[in-house]
Structures are given as C-alpha cells and as structure tokens.
C-alpha cells in the first residue's frame, strides 16, 4: 500500500512539475516596449492588458520622458540593447539615418496588418521596398493653435491669419491679464513645432525649396523666411506672450491653465478638448483652431508621418511581437482606440471603423482649400527630423538669449552636412 501511495504521490509531483513547465512559456513571455511620454496614453496600457488576458503574453511598456527618449533609444540601438518594440518619429528620409532598419528592425512586409495602415503612411516606415514599422496615428489637423473661442469673442478678437494680427491679439490678451500662449520647452520638442509646421509657407515663399534643400543647392541660412520665422518666435517670447518662466513648463499644466482661462491658446491637436473635458468637466468655454500665423502662414500642415512602432531584429520575442501587432490592428481594437483615446478623434487606417471627428476639426478643414495642404518641413526635408531635439535645444537657447536665429540656422546646416557626409549622400560630396 505504501508503495502504491508513494508512486501516486511521485506521479502527482511529477505531473505538477511538468504541468507548470509546459504552461511556463505562455505565461513567461514579456515583450518590452519603449515609448516617449507624449506618444502613449492609458489606451495603450488597456490594450496591452487586454492582449495579456487573451494570450498570456505580458507587455512591459517603458515610458521615457520625451526629452530623453530619442537619445536613449539611439544609444540603446547603437549598443545592441534595444527593447523588443520601440517607437520613433520617422519619415521616408529619416528612417535610414534614424534606425538603420536593415540592421535593427524586423521586416514586416508580409504581415496582414500592413494593409490596415493608410498607404500614405507606409513610406515612412519602409526602406528599400520593405515595411518595418506599424504606424497607428491620427489624421487630425496636427499642431495648429487651439484657442479659447469664448475669450476671443469676449475680447473682440478673430482668429488671426497674419503675424501682425496675431501679435495684436496676443497683446490684447496679455493686457487682459491672461497669458496668450502656453509654450513648453523643457521636454525639448514642442518649441520646434512653430518653426517646422509652417514648412509649407517656406515653400510658398521660395518655390522648390524642399527639393533644393534635399539636393544641397541651398542652405537653411540662405532662406530669409526661416530667419524671419525664428525672429518672430523670439519676439513672441520676449514680449511675454508665452508667460513668465515658460522655459520651465513641461506641458503638464496645459489643460488646467486653458480650462481655467489663465491661458488663451496653445499649439496642440484638436483632440486636446477631450482631455480638458475629462479633467475639467465644469469648463464651459468653446474651443477653436487656427493655423500658425508666423510669417503670415496660411498653409495646412500636412504630415503623413508620425511616431511608429518598430520591432528589434535581435529581440528574443519576435513571434510574440507579431501577435501583438496583429492584435493592435484588429478592427475591434482600432475601434476601442478611437473610443477610449483621451485625445484622438480618429485613427488613420483603412479599416472601416466609426471615427469621432470634432466639429472644430471639420470647421478648420472646410475653410482651407486643398491647394493649401503642404508638407511640413520635417517630412519634406532630409536630415531635419533627425535633429529635432537638437533644434529644440537651440530654440530654447535662443529664447534665453544664448543663441541668435542666424546661429540656429547655421547649426541646422552644420548638422545636416555632418549627417549627409556620414551617410555618403552624393549631394554633399
């Protein structure tokens, strides 16, 4: 009897151990995902959780402060220690210099979800005919001025369309004891938008500019409109339109300051209204959008590029990552993203889902003729997007008086030349 009991006990123990051993691979896989702070929200965490519930594969989302994400990711890639999934802002020119995809990224060309992305976005995540990234991004008017319509009406102001009217509006708002613009530079990227989103205006004033810049037939320092734009940005800061101590701002107070009427406008996306409504349901202000009127810009910032997810080629969980990307691009999860995203009103995909466009987006887009839809600087000009954070540092330095607008343009040219020469771009030989 003892012998039988011993055998039964041993079998039970062995069975348990084997059972645990067999179930381990499913429960033990953890995908690491590194993302910049501003690119992810609770909706990504919720979807990751849902994915874990379905598959048993965990997703460890590492959120890095925006000011450090780019350098940290590049350092990790260069050191061969990248996470399984990493996000980066890319475009057809930058993908090679930013990622060296053939060396670092998993080829997803044959995955079904490639067709889910808007075809206009695919070149940004492709290199040499192969697709390496998944870009799930919105298609709203990106980084235009988001303003307090109620306040503007009260002060008798119309949305400005020229720099001169913009300055007058800012002056009137400032005199009313309200900070005209919420700007934040400490994250390193936001201050570049005012310069780069008006790329279409540079093209208007200097036809063929992007092509000439990409062929090294002209430099940033040769473009008076760019110099003027930087000077106007500096003037805005010097006149106090960004408020006191804006250099210390990190973006986290934007919703609160706008909702409480302490600030009149900021450069952001229209879906920001959802964040305001959620955090400040008592707020009754009406909101609107207008284009960045620096150097009298009235071009619509068309940008088919955005932050995208890439998978590390040397990663150990490539199959799990593929499952995760399949999951994220499934119709129900795309709909979940639109319905639950704190800021977005749509996702730019080919799958038919219920988008949630806001009236203010429709209003702005209806006003602007298609001929005014122009590619933003970072998507049209080579070797600019890669130095976005460096330009951010330079603009911050300009605001504190440590650099002149001329020096900023020269620095951009120098960095472009350095990158172009390093990559062996024939236009720079």
């Amino acid at each position, binding site marked *: 009897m003892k012998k039988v009991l011993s055998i039964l006990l041993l079998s039970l123990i062995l069975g348990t151990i084997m059972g645990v051993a067999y179930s381990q691979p499913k429960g033990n896989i953890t995908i690491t995902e590194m993302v910049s702070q501003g690119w992810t929200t609770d909706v990504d965490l919720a979807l990751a959780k849902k994915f874990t519930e379905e598959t048993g594969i965990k997703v460890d989302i590492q959120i890095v402060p925006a000011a450090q994400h780019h350098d940290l990711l590049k350092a990790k890639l260069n050191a061969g220690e990248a996470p399984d999934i990493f996000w980066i802002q890319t475009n057809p020119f930058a993908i090679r210099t930013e990622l060296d995809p053939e060396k670092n990224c998993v080829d997803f060309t044959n995955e079904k979800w490639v067709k889910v992305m808007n075809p206009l976005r695919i070149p940004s995540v492709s290199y040499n005919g192969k697709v390496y990234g998944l870009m799930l991004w919105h298609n709203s008017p990106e980084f235009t001025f988001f303003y307090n319509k109620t306040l503007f009406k009260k002060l008798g102001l119309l949305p400005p369309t020229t720099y001169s009217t913009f300055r007058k509006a800012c002056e009137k708002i400032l005199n009313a004891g309200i900070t005209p613009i919420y700007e934040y530079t400490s994250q390193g990227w936001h201050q570049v938008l005012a310069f780069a989103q008006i790329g279409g205006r540079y093209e208007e004033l200097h036809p063929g500019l992007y092509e000439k810049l990409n062929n090294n037939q002209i430099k940033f320092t040769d473009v008076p409109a760019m110099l003027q734009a930087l000077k106007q940005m500096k003037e805005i800061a010097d006149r106090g339109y960004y408020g006191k101590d804006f250099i210390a701002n990190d973006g986290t107070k934007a919703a609160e300051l706008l909702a409480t009427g302490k600030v009149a406008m900021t450069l952001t996306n229209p879906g920001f209204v959802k964040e305001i409504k959620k955090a400040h349901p008592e707020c009754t202000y009406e909101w609107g959008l207008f284009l960045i009127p620096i150097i009298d810009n009235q071009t619509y910032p068309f940008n088919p590029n955005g932050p995208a997810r890439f998978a590390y080629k040397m990663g150990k969980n490539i199959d799990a990552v593929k499952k995760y990307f399949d999951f994220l691009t499934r119709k129900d999860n795309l709909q979940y993203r639109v319905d639950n995203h704190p800021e977005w009103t749509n996702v730019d995909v080919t799958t038919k889902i219920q988008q949630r466009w806001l009236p203010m987006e429709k209003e702005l887009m209806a006003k602007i003729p298609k001929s005014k839809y122009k590619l933003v600087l970072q998507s049209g000009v080579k070797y600019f997007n890669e130095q976005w954070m460096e330009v951010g540092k330079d603009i911050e*330095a300009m605001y504190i008086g*440590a650099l002149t607008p001329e020096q900023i343009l020269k620095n951009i040219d120098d960095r472009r030349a350095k990158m172009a020469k390093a990559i062996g771009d024939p236009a720079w030989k």
Partner: protein
Amino acid sequence: MNLNKIYPQYFIFPALALYILLFIIPGLIGIYYSFTDWNRYSSEINFIGLENYKTIFNAGSSYFSYIYNTLRFTVVSNIVKIIPALFLAIFLSENLKGENIHRAILFFPSILSYLVIGIIFRSILHPQGLVNNILRTVGLGFMAKAWLADPKWVWSSIYAVDAWRGIGYVMTIFIAGLHSIPRYYYEAADIDGAGFFQKLIHITLPMLRPAITVNLVFGITYGLRVFDIIFVLTNGGPGRMTEVINTGVFKEFALGTYGIGSALSTILFVFLGFISIFLVRLMNRREIEL
C-alpha cells in the same frame, strides 16, 4: 606562517591580463577611434587625423563650452561639498546627543539613485514647486525663480542638489579621519589656551590631510565624469547651458557620430589621467611628510 614570503612575479599575470584585456586595449582602441570618422551611417572607418579635435576645440564650437562646464562643475561642486562637510564632520564628532542619527540622516541622500533625485528636485525646484511656494508663503515671493530654467540660477541649483546628495558621503570620510587624530593633541592645545580655529588650523587640518586628499581625488574624478545629476535635472539645458563632456559624449553616440564621441572621451581621459597622477603624487608626498 611566514609573512615575509616573497611570491613569484608571475602571480600577477592573470590580473594583469584581465586588466589589459578589459581596460588598456579598449582604452587604446577608443583613442584610435577618436582619430577616425567612425559613424553609424557608414561601414567604412577612415583615419582623419586631428579633425575631430579641431571640431571640438574650434573657437565657436559648443563642445568647448562642454569642457569649460565640466571643469567649472568639478571645481565648484567640490568646494560646496568639502567645506561644509568638514565643519559638519567636526560638529558631529563632538559627542553630540543622537550623533549617529544625524550622521545617518546626512548620509541618506548619498544612497538615493540619481533618477529619484531628479524626479524629486525637478518638482521641488519648479516655478510652482515647493521652494517657491515656501518663499511666497513667508513673503519672499520676489525671490521665487525658475531654478532649473533660469540661466542665472541653473548652475547654483545643480550645485545645491549635488551638495545635498554628496555632503554626507564626504562627511563620513572626514569623520573617519577625525577619529584617527589622537585626543591628546587637543588636550595639550586646550591647556595652551588654543581656540577653535587655532586647533582647526594647527591640528585638525594637518592631521586630516589623508582624508582631504581622498575626498579631493574622489570629488575631482566624480566632477570630471559627471553625467547623471545633469542629465536628470536639466538634460544639459536650458539651451545648452549645462552640457558637460559626458552629456556631450552621450549625445554624440546617440547621433551615431562615434568618432567625435570618442574624441570627447579621450579628452576626458587625458584630464583624468593628469589630475590623478598629480593627486597621487601629492598624496604620497604628504603621507611621507606625516
């Protein structure tokens, strides 16, 4: 047991081999790469002589300010840590009530990670942070500043945070040094009627030379290699005001321009090498004197 036994010299070979393999060879390779155009975008590595160094030492170059900032940080951060730490050590060696608790409290910041310190102090030193709120509460609102964003105050804020973190560690070394000074020197000085400063100058400081040297060596090498505290507090900003050599190296490597990154590292290595040799010689001479 024969304590005077002389072991054969080849016993040193395993350690020496490891040292050469892990430190000397990578160091020499790094120095070699500083004379090349090595970068992430090209598989070719070409020898370009002193070109990277010319770029760094170019009069208008931002790299030059990185070197200047590093040297400035090294000098000032040591001054603001060593002098207060010395007086704190003397104060806490006077058999005070609860001196161990005081020491533990002062040492505590040294064990915190820089990331934690960065998060805490970015919040405390924010224009709407604790420091400014206290100033406003006590009627000193006019003194409120954007401590980490105001060009006039950013370095002082970094020194202050660095001192807050490092003083306890420096103080601990001084306390160990103070305990090794025989009490009868002070008793004899008391009989002769010496005051606090006379005892400090004629007994404490000369007898504390080894501890001072240790703190200087640690402090200077730390100062020249500084990275974390700057990275977490200001990331080199506002603008590039607080960039130091190592944040520059980090950024060059992130940009994929390894050649310039290696040249900056080599410059740091040369600084560290010269200063270490000088300090070690100084320490040896003083120990002989003592």
